[in-house]
């Protein structure tokens, strides 16, 4: 079969690690090739090489059978390679047309010929079933639509090969299905697609072949029709993986957290959360599902005290903490695994041991009379490191920045659980982690629940919510749905609620 892209024996080294080690892949015309691997396996590096962002140390790239050196993304574009980035690169107050022609504006005299561009975009949109209105402004359209704009941008530039980098991370289940359909349309029109993902389900649904990468090396390439999710996961991780979380039935106790009529007017002066009410009981995991930006951050920040609530009450362990300081809430037994571990959870410039006392540094035994007690701090760090299996090159003194994402997260989880909190608020606790770390952190959350503590899990990953939560609520446009028993819900019903469909 004809290869549109062939990468042969690619090697790329960064200081200290070999990101790509003798990797060869080939993309056939008219197929979807999935690139599967854990975080840090080298998928993104490989695609950055193909897209001209990095130069390979060794190896060669063949486009349409011809050896090519790709020096920059512009050249990649002109070779017909387009990339849909995980984080969209769009100008929010521009129209869709303006965004698409940005950088290659068709000119008519001294002005930009938007009309003809809009027509071309409309034609493309119809041809591939993208359903995009060229006149709409980006800030007014949904995330799914923004992604389709990114796709159109590539098509407008006559891309033959489209690279999708984790495209489903920001979509609702229904939007994911739409995207799958679009991808199939694209290949039926003769385009070729490389799909970077770690979601096995999506590969099964849409890809033709799958190349698995582990630690910078190709483990193998399989035909999707001839394999199973389990087999691919095993190739990815290097051992068998359990997909289901072992969980005893919950034994609910008394309520720990009671939230009543909680409303938050966010920093954009919009009512981001409106009259949310729920309770979290001892011995349960309450899951809050929802697509990103539907009030999750407002809820979390109001609970933790990072942002003031405008209405309602929060009661933790029988005490009203609606207006308590962040530190007071921590002392009252609220622990928080933040969504963005590098922005909120860690001081990257600090050593691991210093990070592990981030909330408790000011009290004994970690400090006395204003002086830090280094021995106690070290001992605390070593305890968490061994208990939570944090792999750190230089032990307690490893700079937090040099830890891998998974180990950074384990350190935070360890720190928060070591405070022995009554309520653990876990926000996207496994975002961007590899399967092994996800498994581990899930197990820890369930342990926390089994020991009679309460866990409030806020996640965009629907599977995570369905796997872990005992009861589930869904946030949509700042409103929290009724809380359902997890047993009566499935992916479909939660997906509909995430899209705002009332049942």
């Amino acid at each position: 079969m004809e290869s549109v892209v062939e990468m042969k024996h690619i090697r790329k080294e960064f200081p200290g690690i070999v990101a790509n080690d003798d990797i060869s892949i080939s993309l056939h015309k008219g197929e979807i090739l999935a690139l599967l691997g854990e975080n840090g396996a080298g998928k993104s590096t490989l695609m950055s090489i193909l897209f001209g962002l990095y130069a390979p140390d060794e190896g060669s790239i063949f486009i349409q059978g011809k050896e090519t050196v790709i020096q920059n993304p512009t050249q990649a574009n002109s070779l017909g390679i387009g990339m849909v980035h995980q984080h969209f690169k769009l100008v929010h107050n521009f129209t869709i047309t303006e965004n698409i022609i940005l950088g290659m504006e068709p000119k008519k005299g001294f002005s930009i010929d938007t009309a003809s561009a809009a027509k071309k975009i409309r034609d493309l949109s119809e041809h591939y079933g993208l359903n995009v209105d060229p006149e709409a402004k980006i800030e007014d359209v949904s995330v799914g639509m923004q992604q389709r704009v990114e796709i159109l941008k590539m098509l407008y530039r006559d891309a033959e090969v489209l690279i999708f980098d984790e495209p489903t991370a920001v979509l609702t289940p229904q939007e994911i299905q739409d995207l799958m359909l679009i991808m199939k349309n694209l290949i039926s029109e003769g385009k070729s697609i490389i799909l970077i993902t770690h979601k096995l389900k999506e590969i099964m649904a849409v890809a033709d072949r799958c190349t698995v990468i582990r630690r910078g090396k190709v483990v193998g390439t399989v035909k999707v029709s001839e394999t199973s999710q389990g087999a691919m996961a095993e190739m990815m991780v290097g051992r068998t993986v359990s997909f289901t979380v072992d969980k005893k039935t919950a034994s609910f106790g008394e309520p720990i957290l009671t939230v009543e009529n909680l409303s938050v007017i966010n920093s954009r002066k919009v009512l981001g959360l409106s009259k949310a009410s729920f309770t979290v009981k001892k011995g349960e995991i309450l899951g809050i599902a929802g697509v990103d930006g539907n009030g999750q951050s407002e809820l979390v920040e109001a609970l933790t005290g990072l942002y003031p609530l405008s209405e309602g009450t929060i009661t933790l362990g029988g005490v009203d903490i609606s207006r308590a300081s962040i530190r007071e809430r921590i002392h009252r037994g609220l622990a928080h695994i933040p969504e963005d571990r590098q922005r909120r959870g860690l001081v990257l410039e600090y050593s691991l041991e210093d990070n592990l006392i981030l909330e408790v540094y000011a009290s004994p035994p970690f400090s006395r009379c204003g002086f830090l007690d280094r021995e106690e701090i070290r001992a605390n760090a070593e305890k968490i490191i061994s208990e939570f299996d944090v792999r750190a090159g230089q032990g307690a003194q490893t700079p937090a920045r040099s830890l891998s994402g998974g180990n950074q997260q384990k350190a935070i989880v360890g720190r928060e659980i070591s405070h022995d909190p009554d309520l653990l608020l876990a926000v996207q606790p496994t975002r961007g982690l590899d399967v092994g770390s996800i498994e581990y952190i899930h197990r820890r959350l369930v342990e926390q629940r089994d020991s009679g503590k309460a866990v409030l899990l806020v996640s965009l990953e629907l599977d995570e919510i369905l796997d872990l939560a005992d009861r589930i609520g869904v946030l949509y446009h700042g409103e929290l749905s009724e809380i359902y028993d997890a047993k009566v819900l499935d992916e479909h019903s939660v997906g509909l609620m995430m899209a705002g469909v009332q049942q």
Partner: protein
Amino acid sequence: MKVKLPKELTVAFIAVLLGLAAGSVLMALTGNNPFEGFSYLFRGGLMSLERIGNTLATATPLILTGLSVAFAFNTGLFNIGASGQLLFGGFCATAVGLTLVLPKPLILPLMMLAAILGGGLWGVIPGYLKARFNVHEVVATIMMNWISYWTVYYAVPAYFKGQFLETESRKIPDYASLKAGWLTGIFEGSYINLGLIVALAAVAVIALILRKTVLGYELKAAGFNRDASQYAGMNVNRSIILSMAISGGLAGLGGMTLYTGYATSIQIGILPSQGFDGIAVSLLGANTPLGVLFAAVFFGILHSGKGFMNAMTNVPPQIGDTIIATIIYFAATSVFIERGIDTLSKKLKTEGMSLKNLLPRARFRPKSDDGSVDHQSAAETSDDGKER
């Protein structure tokens, strides 16, 4: 910290060498012998006890302003207003010294307190503006420099007018001066004064705060990552104000050593350059207290040696300033130097075998072309100059 230090030391060292190299190119261009020029420059700063004393006296305010900038920098703030803080702190100390009549052991601590409070106030205001209204501290501290300048411009002639000159205050009386007979005696009548001890103590205290205390932990965390500090329940706004207060206080203390130690009166119409030099000192010292100490002394040598160089050779004194400026430039662009070291060490690591072949060749090269003034040989001559 321990792992990082050698690299920063190398970077600072290379910056200094490059600066000196640039200086020797300039000397050569102006028709002078760089070897001779540098030997007089360093002799001017170090050749006698008196000159060493003067070098240290020159370095004293620089240590404190460098510390001021470095402390702010460690807590994520860019204090560009050390000049104004130094001026106002020095003014407050002078005011106390000229007003109260008390024995030395009593008045000096009072003056120190006044200097710290005055400089601290000049730091607190931008700190508060930043914490409360998110006014960038660079803008606010620059503004404060001018407020300080004009306040002193008005207050000195109005309340502390000198005997002969309108433009400076009365002379500080002996009992309120940081000059101490025994210290001046040791250094053969130089400008050296007790301010040096104050500065050394400040280095120790700041190092202690940054490394060992809860306060340092909190302030640094707020500087590195405001969001994480907030998440952990720290009061970030308080940290910002406190950092600026300490930073301003240090610069204010520097003002006291300048006007009641090194000099004997305070002049109006001058925004002291020591404040801006503090930024350079801090940069070259890699923003660490000990680094600041060494950088300040080095700058002290250059400052006090350039007059001697000017007197003994035809090298214009501006060359001394140019060298300082070039060093600052290289210290500020230390990222490039660091990157250079990285690629070099990586190359050497991967070509472990050729390293041995490479070294002797590198050693021979500068000797083979004597005539031209290339960077490497210039750096070598400057080293020789230092040793004399």
